[in-house]
């Protein structure tokens, strides 16, 4: 009897029963998205700057800005995914530098640059795996583990090079092509960057593997209670972030034709800032690659604008820090409002 009554209710879905999201809802969501706001801010900056400086909207300047964030953008991808899973990595700058140094030293020892690069990327992946081990098996916090690795990796860079940059003048041109060449008018660096971004953005949005990254970061216990092997997920995102640092390091080497042991100091701040401005939460569970890249673009446009306006370099850090603080403050209030509405 009761079951039948229940079935009746089943047959006629009321206005309140679940339904797929409609178009109006989609538009509302689009307007409410972080990415939309960031694009607007970047466009406004473009317009203002094109009036303020005649050099701003030139091909040379655009290319320089794109080059400035493209390689770091690869690290931003790794960091964003790691942040979504609930982790953080302070060692990205050091590990990127270490990637250059390892590949550079191997090349100077006579290994061909491609093999040297592959070994170097593998080594960085190994560093990530070690961090992942300490976090997931030993149970330490990402912050502390990556802080330690940041110092260790930097120390290894200095130890390996004696503190001096390695000049790699004999790098073959086909290897330098990665960092310095262009396909048509588009620099190879930017092509690689776009491929990485598009690939990971798609995977993050659509694959079951990365969906589990969101579940884990959103609520690790609920994820575990849904049968997700959360430790594996965190291990994977930690390792991936370091591996992408390795890729970035190798590209930097090709671009500069040298390996610099002091490269990338302070990079973690830039990278984390970009991801957070782009909507990634330090608590995990939210963030998009697209948003994080827009965050990186915004920071890059601001830096470039300040340089064109002859603002002292010292001011730039202060302004960058302030932008980060503003972004997270705004975010905090939006979230609070949303929670109250719910």
């Amino acid at each position, binding site marked *: *009897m*009761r*079951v039948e009554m*229940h079935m009746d*209710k*089943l047959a006629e*879905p009321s206005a*309140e*029963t*679940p*339904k*797929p*999201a*409609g178009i109006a*809802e989609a538009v509302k*969501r689009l307007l409410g998205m972080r990415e939309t706001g960031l694009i607007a801010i970047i466009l406004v900056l473009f317009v203002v700057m094109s009036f303020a400086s005649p050099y701003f909207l030139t091909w040379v300047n655009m290319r320089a800005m794109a080059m400035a964030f493209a390689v770091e953008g690869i690290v931003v991808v790794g960091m964003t995914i790691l942040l979504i899973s609930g982790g953080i990595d302070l060692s990205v700058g050091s590990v990127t530098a270490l990637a250059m140094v390892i590949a550079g030293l191997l090349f100077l020892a006579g290994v061909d640059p491609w093999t040297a690069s592959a070994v170097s990327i593998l080594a960085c992946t190994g560093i990530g795996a070690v961090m992942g081990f300490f976090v997931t098996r030993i149970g330490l916090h990402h912050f502390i583990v990556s802080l330690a690795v940041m110092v260790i990796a930097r120390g290894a860079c200095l130890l390996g090079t004696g503190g001096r940059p390695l000049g790699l003048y004999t790098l073959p041109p086909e290897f330098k092509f990665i960092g310095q060449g262009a396909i048509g008018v588009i620099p190879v660096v930017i092509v690689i960057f776009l491929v990485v971004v598009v690939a990971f953005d798609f995977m993050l949005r*659509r*694959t*079951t*593997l990365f*969906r*589990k990254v*969101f*579940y884990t970061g*959103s*609520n690790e*216990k*609920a*994820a*575990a*209670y*849904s*049968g*997700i*092997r959360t430790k594996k997920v965190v291990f994977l995102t930690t390792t991936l972030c370091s591996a992408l640092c390795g890729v970035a390091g190798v590209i930097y080497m090709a671009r500069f034709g040298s390996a610099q042991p002091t490269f990338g100091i302070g990079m973690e701040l830039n990278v984390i800032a970009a991801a957070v401005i782009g909507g990634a939460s330090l608590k995990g*569970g*939210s963030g998009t690659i697209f948003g994080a890249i827009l965050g990186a673009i915004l920071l890059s446009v601001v830096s470039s604008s300040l340089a064109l306006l002859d603002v002292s370099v010292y001011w730039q850090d202060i302004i960058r820090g302030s932008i980060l603080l503003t972004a997270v403050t705004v975010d905090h209030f939006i979230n609070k409002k949303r*929670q109250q509405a*719910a």
Partner: protein
Amino acid sequence: MEQTPILKIDKVSKSFGPVQALRSVDFDLLPGEIHAIAGENGAGKSTLMNIIDGILQPDEGRIFFRGEAVEIASPAVAQRLGIGFVHQEIALCPDVSVAENICMGATATSRSLLMDYKDIDTRARAALRELSDISPAALVRDLSISQQQLVEIAKALTLDCQVLILDEPTAALTEKEAQILFGIMRRLADRGISIIYISHRMVEIFENCDRVSVFRDGQYITTRDVADITPSDVVAAMVGRVIDTLYPDKQAAHERSDEVILEIRDLTEAARFRNVSFDLRRGEILGLAGLIGAGRSEIARGICRLEGKVTGEVRLNGKPIDIRHYRDSIDQGIVYLSEDRKGDGVFLDMSIASNIAALAVEQVATRLGIVDDSREADQAVRLGQSLGLKCGHIRQPASALSGGNQQKVAIAKMLSVGPKVIFLDEPTRGVDVGAKAEIHRILRDLARQGVGIFVISSELPELIGLCDRVLVLREGEISGEVTGDAMTEENIMYLASIEQEREQTA
């Protein structure tokens, strides 16, 4: 004899968004009385208590303390007035000593630069003396739940309060500890301290309180002397309707089956439970009762391998199965619904559809592991409708839903994998009466369809009303089983705390 109430609530209302939690509520508390508050979840008890303690501010109405209108803007103001509140949830610092926890209020307002550990120790000893033999130097995290509850009570006692609010203090206590607490409550009342006592247990109310006030759906219903009223009157006032309709029909005699879905033999986990064996039969709802800390959830989580190192045998439909990780358990069709919905049941910031898909994302994805949004949405709509889920649309975040609907999302998540056995831990905690009845009916429907349903609950009326059979757990061992007419609160409580009874009579 007409006494001036120490605390008087006059036509207080409070809404949260569109939900009216309190509607023009009256309440008064006399000096030196123990005043019980009865009402179902969602009746407005907690909201009223939070207003008295200054955690929430009323939208309308006034509060009088000792005859004067007061504005209780914060818990600090309440403390200054002499109102102490022992919350149901334990809110102690686990890494700090018992003594420091007890004196935290005094430390917070102390003007001294340095900690006076000697003074803290003396005060803590004084507060604990009457209650328990817990060492003031022990760390809170090393205590059992019931000991922590006693520390909470001791903490309130140090505040020199005139009004003491106790929110279900006995939920985690053994019978013996509860009796000690009642003794203390009476002594405090004799000293002129007024106590507001919130409890679901009629026996406790009628044995230990002077008056009882009943609330229902945010409204004040009545206040009566305990001597002038019977427990069934109180229950009728609380529910506002005949209680039988709250629960779906039980399994009929002809529906009974000997077919065992899940067989558990000698399940043991060193510290927490031992030699647990039971059969879950086709078509029945099996309940598990026991005091908090008896190991109820641990058994369910142990079977699913969510935690602990468990030994023993698990047979599903007659075949022994080997579960290493919860993933294996899900793949075998044995799922667990967590007691802590907000903590680990739902992903609050993710969409309803993604929540429902979480147990097996692969199900709504292509072979290459690409999530198919429309399949995910279809699954959510299908399961949501079958459970009567009320929501705007399935891409809303789960945080937008009410407690009852969140619980339906969590249940939909379980059903998405077509489970053979579902363990439900406190399935209706914190959901309103209507949703509760709906969830009960859903569980009965599932049982009829042949899904093994195992329900863990602290609410005895729920177990008695819903289950066909109830196992009782005491300190990690099954102490008995009740079924049919033997399923009474008294029998279950007796089995749950029998050791204490024996100690007392010995």
